């Protein structure tokens, strides 16, 4: 449940995969709307990025718990502690509703806490939080993590890496957009048109990372070839006799 059959090296591979290879924004295209529509500044992008990393990591953890204790297959087995046998109940259809509620609820709480604790932080980050609640990337990362059924620690690594990758991509796009603002672009392509083409080129660049495989977890039981051969020889003799 905690690590499954993942080694620390697998975790590093998972992190690199989430940040570069399967970059949430450039390979999966999630989380762009809010950014594209509202700003061209690097500073805003950094603010958004940090907020997303934080919200994504915590939401990822919370939603993993939701998946394992409420909506997964056979997840309600823990109710046996209070004497209710609910292992046959399948609440998978509530998955979307619960996930988005957890995310929205968490961002709401976070906004309140930040406002009370640090007005300065609130001024720089807190304004993005409502936007982030409906950011495709957050729900998307949680849903992808569920489809892949990671154990707990790899799940944390995966959502953290996804957030980092998103931040990286947003920052890169913002930097280029700042430059584009003063470049000479034909009128019909100004604004969104050239931004799309530019993002497409970046996505192509990130495709170059495909195929870097650091390590995958295997469940391989080490059976030496000798053992198999021995069994084969024995059964051959049985057939002959």
């Amino acid at each position, binding site marked *: 449940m905690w690590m499954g059959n993942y080694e620390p090296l697998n975790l590093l591979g998972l992190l690199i995969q989430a940040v570069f290879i*399967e970059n949430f924004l450039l390979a999966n295209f999630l989380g762009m709307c809010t950014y594209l529509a509202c700003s061209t500044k690097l500073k805003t992008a950094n603010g958004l990025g940090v907020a997303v990393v934080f919200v994504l990591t915590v939401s990822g953890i919370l939603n993993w718990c939701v998946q394992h204790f409420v909506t997964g297959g056979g997840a309600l087995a823990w109710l046996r502690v209070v004497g209710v046998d609910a292992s046959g109940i399948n609440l998978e*259809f509530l998955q979307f509703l619960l996930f988005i509620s957890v995310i929205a609820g968490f961002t709401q709480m976070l906004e309140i806490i930040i406002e009370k604790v640090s007005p300065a932080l609130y001024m720089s980050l807190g304004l993005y939080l409502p936007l982030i609640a409906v950011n495709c990337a957050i729900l998307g990362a949680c849903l992808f993590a569920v489809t892949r*059924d990671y154990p707990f620690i790899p799940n944390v690594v995966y959502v953290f890496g996804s957030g980092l990758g998103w931040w990286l991509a947003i920052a890169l796009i913002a930097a280029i957009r700042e430059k584009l603002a003063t470049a000479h672009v034909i009128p019909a392509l100004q604004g969104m048109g050239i931004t799309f083409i530019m993002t497409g080129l970046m996505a192509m660049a990130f495709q170059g990372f*495909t195929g870097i495989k650091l390590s995958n977890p295997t*469940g391989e*039981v080490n059976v030496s070839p000798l053992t198999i051969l021995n069994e*084969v020889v024995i*059964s051959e003799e049985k057939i002959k006799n």
Partner: protein
Amino acid sequence: MSESPPNTTGTSNLRTILFMVALSFVCALILSVLASALAEPQTVAKNLDRSKQMMIAARILDHQGNFLIRNAEGRYVPAKYLKDGILAPTDQTIIGSQKELLDVYKIRLIPMLVDGKGELTTFQAVNLNEGEYLANYKKTGYYLQPYKLLYKIQSNPSSEAKMEGGQQPTDGYVIPINGFGLWDAIYGYLAIANDGNTVIGMTWYDQKETPGLGANIAEAPWQNLFPGKLLFQAGSDGNTDFKTAPLGITVVKGKVSEVLGESPKSKSAVDGMAGATLTGNGVNDAFKNVLNAYRPFLIKLHEQTKKEG
């Protein structure tokens, strides 16, 4: 706006809470009713998809969903559904309906277990719950278990077989293969003939590879390269040492005709897909890891056929 002037905080909080409770209740009710109503079509759809893929691998079905039957010369011709899962040859292709597909599947593909020494056995004989076994070990791999899953392909029931009495003859076996592609796990079915060496067909029913590139492993043109290939790779001299030969179909980089030419090894290789080398490598590893666990069983099959043939 039609909202009433703000009351005391207490009342408006209460209103908010009541509203949320009512909303949650209504939402949960609608969804629960829907989920219960659709639960059965969903399980049917999921099982149908898996069954179809297995039947395509066993060449009981073709990729378009038409029934197939093997005629006396060994070629596969269109078939139609008679009743009780029995198929009969016919002139034109007919697409099977959902019920027909499930009936044929139930009769023709029997789940069984094989142990480390290659002995066939059943779920009842070793006291394993089939449903639990199938669900628990799908991800980690049935081939790692002490009792490994495979499916026996029964022959098409016909009146002659009934007259002989006794068991239905077997057309072959289906082995579930799983491995890791480029992005995520891949799951497929490999159907082999009674000699434990020749491939009848191969399908991949669950994969999340790159569309247009690695995902081509799930498409008919690539899967059609597999029938007739040999699992045990022959040595360059043409002889096959079943105890030590590499086991599995190799996905080469490029075309088999260019890479291996006329070498006996080419009988155990298929063309690679351009731009999908890593998915191909994943397929190779999947075959190697999974099939080694079934080697004793495959060797037994081969020996039996040698004796009879």
